[in-house]
């Protein structure tokens, strides 16, 4: 019994949608950040599936670079969240609106 490629891609699509819903509907900045990680991982899964399907190593190299990027992004982003918390005493994105008013 083999798995159709479409099923793997569908799992990746569902994972991406879950991540987008987290970004849109959660107010806690840390959860929003975790949802972004979920979206990056959905893309990685699609890359790996197509890399296996075409028997091509390039997709896996791309995933390697995306992981490097995610690590850098998480470090900087969490530092920003800590900085915002230090100044405003909140981590809710609805409360961070001083540029709006």
């Amino acid at each position, binding site marked *: 019994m083999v*798995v*159709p490629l479409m099923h793997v891609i569908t*799992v990746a699509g569902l994972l991406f949608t879950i991540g987008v819903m987290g970004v849109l*509907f959660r107010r806690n900045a840390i959860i929003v950040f975790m949802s972004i990680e*979920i979206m990056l991982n959905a893309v990685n899964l699609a890359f790996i599936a197509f*890399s296996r399907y075409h028997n091509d190593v390039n997709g*896996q190299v791309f995933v390697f670079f995306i992981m490097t990027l995610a690590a850098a*992004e998480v470090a900087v982003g969490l530092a920003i969240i800590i*900085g915002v918390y230090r100044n405003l005493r909140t981590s809710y994105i609805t409360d961070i609106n001083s540029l709006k008013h």
Partner: protein
Amino acid sequence: MSAALFYIFAGLLLGSALFVVLNRNPMYSIVALVFAFANLAGLYFLLEAYFIGVLQVLVYAGAIMVLFLFVVMLLNVQPDQPQLGVVPLERWWYGVLVILFVVLLLILVGRGAQGSLPAAGDEASSIGSVRAVGEALFTKYLLPFEIAGLMLTVALVGTVFLAKRRI
């Protein structure tokens, strides 16, 4: 790849990802996300991407999630209070649009990718090995590899600059 294992891992992955988004307690969300990444590593192993699978456990489930855990503990984040109706209406429309986009993309991809993934051992594949990925990284992608190292250095300096009170 083993079909039964694939569906088990995929189900657990999607379930724990939903738990991350729906749960009010950030601590539970982080633990669920670690579990989701472990399941994703299982999927990578099934897809015979061994190097990437190990990296997933080391970098994501290990390093990145520990960073999240530290920040949540540092900020002492309390569980969210339920606030129904606080989500603006247009966000629902964004959500619907995104779902439509993903469905259309899947339909488009589905036309081109009709085949199925080769079963384990069916077709000897070594593209996921450390050797194959390393060879590609250090020959064809040498310059991007160096730039990635530079980017990590910049991120390190930037993080220290942002997190330190007084330089």
